[in-house]
């Protein structure tokens, strides 16, 4: 199997940052000393991806030109990280973590929920162009496993039903509540506090 050039992706002819993104790009570049602009490569690629939804060749070339790098150095970075998306995807990028903690807590069920709610398997995009589902590696919310990430938001403590609910809400154009779907705060114990319920030596009701 071959990673690139095996699938043909129609490429736009040109890319340019919109004024708002150009400002953000300039701020990213300004973080690094003169002559080290290439350090902003990943930040600019991220901005380009946010603007377009995916990273086209033209976008990568534009980043290379902006930073004074040979284009191939930018391609190397963009193809190395799986979070850079190199082909057009749906409006919502549903990333289902299937690493060990999520899998133990039932990520298979979450994938089934995606299939039932959206009708697509990992790697596919819905026909209305609204959703692309992908399996991803650990997204760093193991305590609240299983989870899905949509854009910048994570939806945690899912099961088949709640995952389906989240996806249905997104489908309707609503914005579901971000974070734990069981209502717990951050990553506190699921059933409420288990330690430090009271302050030792004082008759004060505890709780975090």
């Amino acid at each position: 199997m071959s990673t690139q050039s095996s699938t043909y992706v129609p490429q736009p002819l040109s890319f340019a940052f919109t004024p708002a993104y150009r400002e953000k790009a300039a701020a990213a570049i300004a973080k690094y000393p003169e002559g080290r602009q290439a350090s902003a490569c990943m930040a600019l690629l991220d901005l380009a991806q946010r603007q377009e939804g995916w990273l086209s060749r033209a976008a990568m070339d534009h980043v290379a030109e902006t930073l004074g790098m040979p284009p191939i150095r930018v391609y190397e970075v963009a193809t190395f990280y799986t979070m850079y998306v190199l082909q057009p995807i749906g409006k919502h990028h549903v990333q289902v973590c299937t690493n060990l903690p999520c899998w133990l807590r039932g990520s298979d069920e979450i994938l089934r929920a995606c299939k039932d709610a959206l009708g697509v398997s990992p790697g596919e995009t819905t026909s209305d162009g609204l959703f692309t589902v992908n399996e991803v590696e650990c997204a760093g919310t193991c305590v609240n496993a299983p989870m899905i990430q949509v854009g910048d938001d994570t939806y945690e403590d899912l099961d088949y039903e709640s995952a389906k609910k989240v996806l249905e809400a997104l489908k309707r154009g609503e914005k579901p509540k971000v974070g734990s779907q069981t209502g717990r705060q951050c990553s506190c114990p699921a059933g409420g506090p288990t330690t430090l319920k009271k302050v030792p030596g004082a008759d004060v009701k505890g709780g975090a």
Partner: protein
Amino acid sequence: MPKLTIDGIEIEVEPGLTVLQAAERLGIEIPRFCYHDRLSIAGNCRMCLVEVSPGPPKPSASCALPVAEGMVVKTDSPMVRKGRKGVMEFLLINHPLDCPICDQGGECDLQDQAMLYGLDRGRYHEEKRAVLDKDLGPLVKTCMTRCIQCTRCVRFSAEVAGVPDLGAVGRGEHMEITTYVGKAVGSELSGNLVDLCPVGALTSKPYAFSSRPWELRKTESVDVFDAIGCNIRVDVRGRRVMRVLPRINEDVNEEWISDKSRHAVDGLMAQRLDTPLVRRGGKLAPATWNEAFSAIADKLKGMPAEKIAALAGDMADCESMLALKDLMTALGSHNLDCRQDGAGLDPAQRASYLFNSTIAGIDEADVLLIVGSNPRWEAAVLNARIRKRYLTGKLKIAVVGPRINLTYRYEHLGDGPETLSKLADGTHPFVATMKAAERPMMILGMGALARPDGAVVLGAARRLATAALLVRDGWNGFNVLHTAAARVGGLDVGFVPGSGGLDTGAILEGASSGKIGFVYLLGADEIDMARLGKAFVVYQGSHGDAGANRADVVLPGAAYTEKNATYVNMEGRVQSTRTAVFPPGEAREDWTVIRALSGVLGKPLPYDDDAQMRARLVAANGVFAGRGGAPKAAPWGGFGETGEMDPAPFVSPIGNFYMTDPISRASATMAECTSVFVMGRQAQGTGTHG
């Protein structure tokens, strides 16, 4: 200086060296794939594992491990051997077992090292990966499934060639070496990628499937496609030159050669002159040597000496030029010139036409001014050396001449003579920069000298040398960059107009007006043949090119791979080519042709064999005694003319790197390179292109 022990031998080396380099000093060879002396250190193949104490109880990669005081290194312990065997097994997991159909077979690092560290069977039963081949242009063939991702090619193209087109995209098992956009590697040094590749992933496209390394007879020789005098090895099978590879010479070409030096050799089998030809009834017809010689003798009979002239071409060797000069002297003519481009060089002052700093001197230079030259095309290997120095951050470069991509940044001072005048007067601010530098260099190209006002430009450059203090104790920063391999040798043997003699321009002028009735072209093809007018033209050379087309008598000569001949490179280094194959058909070594002709003309030259010929060379100019050695510094004097310079900007004489001489013009490979790299037509796969 840290002292360490390697395999029980104590050695003291300078700090900053790696363990692998220190071991090399002791003659201990550590296997490696990614490490290369002339590239940055990547440390990704892990083949160079050694055991080091004190340190973690596991093998370390010696190529990326700096030496430290008191280190004890074992390069062949059981742990090391086990580690390397493990690395080799991993490397072979995805490497196809296609050595029998691989061009690298027999000279493959992976094959050799697998003999030492490979297992006799695989333990990997899963699917192997396969990678699509990439189109890197007409010179480099790819078989990317064989790639072991050492990234030598990526580092070479980014660091040495200065054309960062190659990269490693993807990660892990999906990593691939590619240009990503599918373009050809646009470097004049791309052939070196093939030498660098330790496996058969990058092989030579023109040489594909044509022979095995053990079938080849190897002859050490010298390249003549540019004036650098790159050291090469000519590989021959039967009567055919199969390929040319670089030989290491740190002072000249390190271990690189340009694509023209490497791949123009298929031109040696095309358009060859293999029999004497005499023009009869307007057409060149085959003749015997005697017929050809008597045709010349008939023509010369009674011809006044001042009507006779000779021009030497860019690939002529010193022996034949000296023999022809002796013959012309015997005939009483002083009309001879080896500067067929009319370069305004001063033959009387050796320092005026040499690359005085020497090529290795670039490694010490701190300021460089390039005047009227495109070193990337005129001397690609030398340009890589400039880039190497530039990458250390210690070389400041400025250019007077065309604004082109030289693979390094430079300050563009101007386009031509106007800027040069200011520099020569010392009124340009850059002169102060050069003055303040420790090792300032100027490279004066043929774009500045090969013009009608060349001698005046040379004079201005001489004044600039004074103004910028280019010549100081133990350093001469005045350099002429030649484009012709024959040029310095020609000037050294004195193949220039004698007293009252005519130079190239005047000879051509005379031939058009009828004042010159006989012109002897020794491999000279780069002149405007129409200007030879009605003169009787003898062409001696290896290829049927412009000169032979115009000639009345053609004498077949030998190409550089077919003779033991002397060439002097631009530094003044005297080197020899060696006979790798015999000249085709009736063709003969060039000086012997002239010697034979001299007998027919009744003015026999006083040398009959190689030894006598070489003795004559040394007698003609003492520099030929120093064959093979380092070039001698030439005394510094005054030269050049004063006068008005034509304000036209300097233009490099080379319009197409791939076709500059009769051999490369006859080469099909160079024709394809021209179409891809110069005309920009990249070959498209047809689906049945293999």
